């Protein structure tokens, strides 16, 4: 497998305040990568830098060998798409209109959508099971339905890399699993590389090929879930006592909280 994205010694942050310090790693084509770490460890900052919206203060990121931030924004939008934790829309757009916006990177100014654009949008809605919502307004949907629509928009963009920032943190376990199964399917069938920030360590262990554990702006550990999610690592980074078991079906690590006995 070739290296799709190379991160070389980046420092990233806001207003000269460094959140990430000297981070380097690589993302391979077709990988399903999870980024984990405590609140404030720089997960979202890293994802924003990777997805070409937050230029690193120092260091470089390469996409297919060329400097990511030298590639035009509308060109990279045909390869990258992004799903945020929560998307707020203040105007009454319909689901269909939202999903079609995923085709914006492919359209030149004033050019109307072609049959191919409509087909891509429809297909992504059928994959995400949102066709039945097409005429509804986004703001009238439940959190789970809404997130599915935002994912449909991201798929309509026909990305090669899909970035997600805690896409399931507001959702019930049914929707969490539905979304992660969907992503896993896209990763396998459409060869979409997935890079995702996750809070839930068990979901991360179950679905990701590889995990990057961030601590205080640096990579603490990177590797397959079995290597990263050890009780020593978790206790050190999260400052929390845990018990690490094995999921009896998949054999992946399973993390249990160890409650302190309060006298």
């Amino acid at each position, binding site marked *: 497998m070739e290296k799709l994205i190379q991160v070389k010694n980046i420092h990233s942050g806001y207003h000269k305040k460094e959140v990430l310090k000297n981070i380097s790693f690589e993302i391979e084509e077709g990988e399903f990568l999870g980024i984990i770490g405590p609140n404030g460890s720089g997960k979202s900052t890293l994802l*924003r830098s990777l*997805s*070409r*919206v937050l230029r690193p203060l120092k260091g470089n990121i390469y996409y297919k060998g060329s400097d990511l931030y030298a590639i*035009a*924004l*509308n*060109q*990279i*939008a*045909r390869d*990258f*798409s*992004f799903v*945020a934790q929560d*998307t*707020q*829309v*203040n*105007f*009454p*757009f*319909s689901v269909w*209109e*939202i999903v079609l*916006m*995923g085709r*914006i*990177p492919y*359209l030149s*100014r*004033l050019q109307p959508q072609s049959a191919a654009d409509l087909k891509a949008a429809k297909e992504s809605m059928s994959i995400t099971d949102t066709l039945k919502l097409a005429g509804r307004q986004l*703001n009238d949907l439940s959190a789970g339905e809404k997130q599915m629509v935002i994912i449909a928009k991201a798929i309509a*963009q026909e990305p090669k890399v899909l970035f997600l920032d805690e896409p399931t943190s507001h959702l019930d376990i049914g929707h969490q699993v539905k979304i992660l199964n969907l992503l896993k399917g896209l990763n396998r069938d459409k060869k979409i590389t997935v890079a995702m920030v996750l809070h839930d360590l068990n979901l991360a262990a179950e679905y990701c090929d590889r995990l990057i554990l961030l601590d205080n702006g640096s990579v603490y550990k990177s590797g397959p879930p079995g290597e990263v999610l050890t009780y020593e690592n978790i206790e050190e980074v999260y400052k929390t006592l845990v018990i690490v078991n094995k999921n009896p079906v998949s054999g992946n690590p399973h993390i249990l909280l160890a409650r302190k006995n309060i006298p």
Partner: protein
Amino acid sequence: MSKKIFLLLILFLSLSVFTGLYFGAAELSPDIFRLRLCRIITGLIAGAGLAVSGVIFQGILRNPLAEPYVLGVSSGAGVGAVLGLFFNLSLQTIPVLAFFGAGITMLIVYNLAKVNGRVSTQNLLLSGVIVGAVFSSILLFLVSISPNEAIHGITWWLLGSLQVFDIPLLATVSILVLCGIGIALFLTRELNAISLGEEEALHLGVNVDTVKRLLFVVASLITGSIVCVCGIIGFIGLIIPHAVRSIIGSDHRQVLPASAIAAGAFLILADTLSRVIMPPVEIPIGVITAFIGGPVFILLLRKKIKSPF
């Protein structure tokens, strides 16, 4: 835009042009006809321009309550224009001054509302209203201390009027407004993307900073130009886009042109109303639009406060 909606809008426009031409206190004569035609053209340009700048402000600020009058931008433009009159500057410079007045006001309002890099609806409206009030009093101050007799006449102008005596100024303003609307029409897809959030728009390949800056200049230019010829007419940019959205949805590719036509027609009707309600007195058109716009604003605000964001 769907054909049906477009035809309906054209019908509405023709109807308002017709009533504008044939209703009024005076008997129809060639002179009266010419005067009314001039008012109709002014109304069309002013309505379309104010609605388009309303749609632009709403789009780039991601807020359906944004509008040149509510944000104080109209008052800022007014101060610019009156300063020009005050120092007896040439007529060509007045639209330029009004444009700078509008732009500077918008910058002040936006930066006052920005707390920790975020602009909330409440802060935006509050700072808009306050800055608008300050600029309005500066306007009144300039008017009251002015030795220039002509300036006393502009109290009337401040309340908004489609009566334009200066045809070259109207022509200049029309060209500016039409250019502005043309540029905005080119950027409607970007406005759609920005409605999802600035970061979302970046992920869709939209150069958010450039688009925002350009549209910001366009909206200030449109507002400034219109204030030069017809004073401060409030709420058009709020009522019309809101009504249009509730009928045809939020896609800016349709909302923008539909609002422009509908607002032109609406302003012509409001002007006709202002002439025929109690002749021979002419009610300032700003009074009529505020009578309709105020309640619409309150309804929208209530709806927004009830919703979680």
